[in-house]
Each structure stands twice: as C-alpha cells, then as structure tokens.
C-alpha cells in the first residue's frame, strides 16, 4: 500500500480498525505515522473544546421555514441525507457548537430585522384586507410547528375573524415576544465573550467591549421604556436596531477571537 492509498482509507473509514495492508504500511512509514498522530491530536483536542450554548430549536425551525419560503433552501431527497459522510465531516461536526453560535447570531439578526419590518399589528382582523402571502408553499404540518411570529402573517389571509382571533391568541400565548427571542439569543452568545481573548490587542479589545457595554446600556434603556409603555413603537424600533447592532458586534468579536486562535 502507498501513502496516498492509506490517506484514502482514512478518508473513508477514519480510525476504525484499519485493514491489514494499511496497518503494515503504517508500521513502516514514518510520514503516515506522523499524519495519523496529527489527526489523533486534532480529534482529541477538538473533543476537549467545551460545548457552547445551542440556540433554542424554535430559532432553527423559524429560520429554516423562512429560508425555505424564500426559496433559498430546497428540500433534498431523503437518499442524499443518508449518504455516508466522510470522516472529515465527522471531525468538523465536533466544531458545530461554535458554528451554531455564529448562526445563532445570524438568526437573531434575521429575526430582529424581520420583526422590525413586519411588526405584529393590533388592528382588527376584519380591517386586514391585504396580508403578505407566503412566497412558497409550506406544508401544513410545518405551519403548525411554526410558533414564532415569522409565520404569523400567513393565517391572516383566509381565516374568519373569530377563528383567527382565538388562534392568534393561542399562538401569542405560546410564543416568546420578538424582543425576548432576540434578547435571549444574544444573551446566550454574549456569555462566551468575557472569557474570550478577542483581537489580542488591548485597544481593539477595549473598544469592542466598551461598545458592547454601550449597546447593553441602550438596550436596557429601551427595555425599561417598553416595560413602562408597551405601546411605544419607537422604543421598540430602537430596541430591534440595537439588537441588530449587538448581533453584528458579537459576530465581529467572535470572529476576532477565532482569527487569533
């Protein structure tokens, strides 16, 4: 067996018991021994990375349905999903929590923007003549699972006023408010930041952290205002805008930390 063939075996089967030919080659080839040692170290190190916080499932459901509705993602046949993943994808899966956190920020950002532009209105249903139609067909089962306000406009189209009102009330009681949703997600992401060495540069780190504090203070101010006056739409707009900025800032901070390490 040659070195390239051993690499192919590793790609296909990972560290599962190697075939006899591969083991014989490995015993006599110092280069391949080095490769295997490196891979072993990488896998071991990756497993020691502490698990980070996963955003709630509802964010993924909402994001997925939104992307599907916009035709950005298309459902793949089940066969594709069952294809055997190569071993390097298994290794990369170990890093998934970090990816999820970044995606969580993106999700929060998407939701914040969405809610800013699609604020739930309190107008009577009878007065709602035109409601935004979904851009693509979404299966009924999925619609039922969508508990976030991202799906809220769809039922407005045909339901009678009474039915809609009760359904709307029920959904409203189940789902978190946009503000809570974005705030919780961002707070989860932020928990990683204090221990993170950012750009490895004191001035940049100080600026990033200072701006994060600034945003948090502003968010707290808007939240306080909304508690006192929930109908203050301007405060709500500023709150969502601050969430959007915070998501971008956290994303930049995590990017700085990642590029450093």
């Amino acid at each position: 067996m040659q070195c390239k063939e051993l690499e192919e075996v590793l790609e296909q089967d990972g560290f599962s018991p190697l075939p006899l030919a591969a083991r014989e080659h490995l015993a006599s080839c110092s280069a391949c021994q080095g490769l295997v040692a490196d891979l072993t170290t990488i896998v071991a190190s990756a497993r020691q990375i502490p698990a980070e916080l996963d955003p709630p499932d509802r964010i993924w459901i909402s994001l997925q349905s939104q992307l599907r509705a916009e035709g950005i993602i298309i459902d793949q046949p089940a066969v594709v999903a069952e294809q055997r993943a190569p071993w390097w994808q298994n290794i990369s899966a170990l890093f998934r929590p970090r990816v999820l956190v970044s995606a969580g920020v993106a999700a929060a950002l998407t939701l914040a923007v969405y809610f800013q532009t699609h604020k739930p209105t309190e107008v009577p249903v009878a007065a709602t003549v035109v409601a935004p139609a979904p851009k693509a067909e979404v299966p009924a089962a999925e619609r039922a699972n969508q508990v976030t306000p991202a799906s809220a406009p769809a039922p407005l189209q045909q339901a009678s006023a009474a039915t809609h009102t009760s359904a709307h009330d029920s959904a409203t009681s189940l789902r978190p408010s946009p503000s809570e949703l974005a705030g919780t997600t961002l707070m989860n992401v932020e928990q990683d930041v204090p221990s993170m060495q950012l750009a490895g540069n004191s001035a940049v780190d100080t600026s990033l952290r200072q701006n994060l504090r600034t945003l948090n203070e502003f968010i707290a101010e808007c939240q306080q205002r909304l508690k006192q006056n929930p109908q203050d739409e301007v405060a709500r707009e500023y709150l969502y805008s601050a969430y959007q900025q915070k998501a971008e800032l956290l994303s930049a901070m995590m990017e700085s930390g990642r590029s450093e390490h």
Partner: protein
Amino acid sequence: MYRTIDRRVLGLLGPGLLFIAASPLLASPPEHKDSRFIVKNRPVVVLQNIVDGRIEVKSWKNHEILVTSTAASDKVDIDIEQVGDRIDISASAMVASSQPHDIEANFQLTVPEETELQLRTQTGLIYVEQVNGDMKLQSVAGDVHLKEVSGYIIVKTAGGSLVCNMCGGKLEFTSISGSAQVLAPALTSVNLMTTTGNILYDGDFVRTGLYTMNSGRGLVEVRFSGSNSFDLNAHTNLGNVDNQAAAFLKPDTHSSRHSTQKFAHSLFGTVGQGLAKVELSSYSGTIRILKRN
C-alpha cells in the same frame, strides 16, 4: 551590610534596566516597502489590515498603484498581490502581542483617481482624499476621514468617527458610539446611523436628495443654507427638537402635519419648495436645526 547589598544590586540592576529600556530599539527597525502595480481600467483595492495601523489613500493621474507599507516589527506579515486590476493587500499578526504599536502596519496608497476601495483596519485612521469610486471602509476604533471623495461610500465602525469633507455621491454610515460630521457635501443620498454618537450635517441638500440621520442618544444637528429646498421631518422619542431656524421653516406643504414650535418632540416643516427630503430622528438625544449665516 544592607548598604553593600544595595550597591551590588544596583550595580547589577543598572545595566539590566538600561538593556531592557533599549531592547525595543534594538529589536527590529520598522520595515518599509514600496510596491508598484500597473493597472488599466478602474482598479479595485482591497486592504485588510487585521492589525493596527493607519491607511492613507491619495490619488494621482498615473494608471499605476503605489503601495507603501511600513510594519512596526517583524511580527507583522504583509501580503500584496495583483490580480488583473485588483490589488489585494493584507496585514496580519504572526504572534499575539499586547505591546502597543508592536503589531502595527501603516499603509500609504497612491491610486488612480477612479478607483474602488475596500479598506478595513482595527484602530488606525483611514484617510482618503480625492478618490472617485465606490468605497467600503470599516474600522473598529479608528476614525475615518474623507476629503473630496465621491461614489457610493459605506463607512462602518464600532467606535470610530467619520469626518466627510466635500464628499459627493451617496453616503452610508453606521456606528455604535462613533460620531459623524458631514461638511460641505454634495451628496444626493445620506444615511447616518449611530447609537450614542453625535451627527453634524453642515451643508446643502441637493434637490431630490434623500437624507436620513438617526442617533439613539446623541445630538443630531443640521445646518442648512437659505437657498436650500427640502421637507423636514424631525422626531425624537424622549429628547427635544431644538428649532433655531423657525423663521425659515414653513408649514409642511406636502403634508397636513405641522409643528414648528421650539423644543418639541417632533417637527415638520418645509424650506423653499421642499424638493429634498430630510428625516432626522433620535431616541433620547436632541435634534437641532440651524440656518447657516
């Protein structure tokens, strides 16, 4: 005995301290490098300065780009590459360091007048003068100064401020705590947004232009001239609208809304025929409207 020890310690410490003090000077002198690239059409310069440092861009008549880079130490890796009419420049740290100015790369670019720019740095100043072309300028804490530039200009900072002097085209500024000053502009579209910084717009509003300025907590100040023509909509949630130009603001001719009293939460009015549209907003800051003398 103590005196003897003190003398010995001092005898050893003296040269040691001197060496420590001198070591940064002996370590590595700044590395200075010039690179020239011939370009044909409107070039694009992409500069990613992952470390600290100043970026200065000026123009000349030549179809050539001159990149002068200065790295403060050998801990900075500078990579410059030409791909057709695109010049990619990157500076990154090879080691982590908390020493100020240790990981720093400064760039001076001389580019054709018609050049597109994408510049990014951490804490240093970005300065662009007399360049026409779309540009995206990003910084964490560094300020951005623009003079006589035009195009679609996007500036994004966390804490850095913007000074835009005699700029033309379209301007978008987004920041958390940075301020923006737009002086003597010829901009047809302006969108300035900062959470806690201040905004100053001192200049004319181009007819049919759209101008949006928004600060969460900071001061938004607009100084216009009597020959301008624009509709004004100013609104603050918790702050004040300080109207120091009441004599020049007519009731909004394109709307039934009208309020020109001083220190209110909102103000609608028209100057001239109301050809441009100006929207000023703030959450808890003050909005001030002035007419220039």
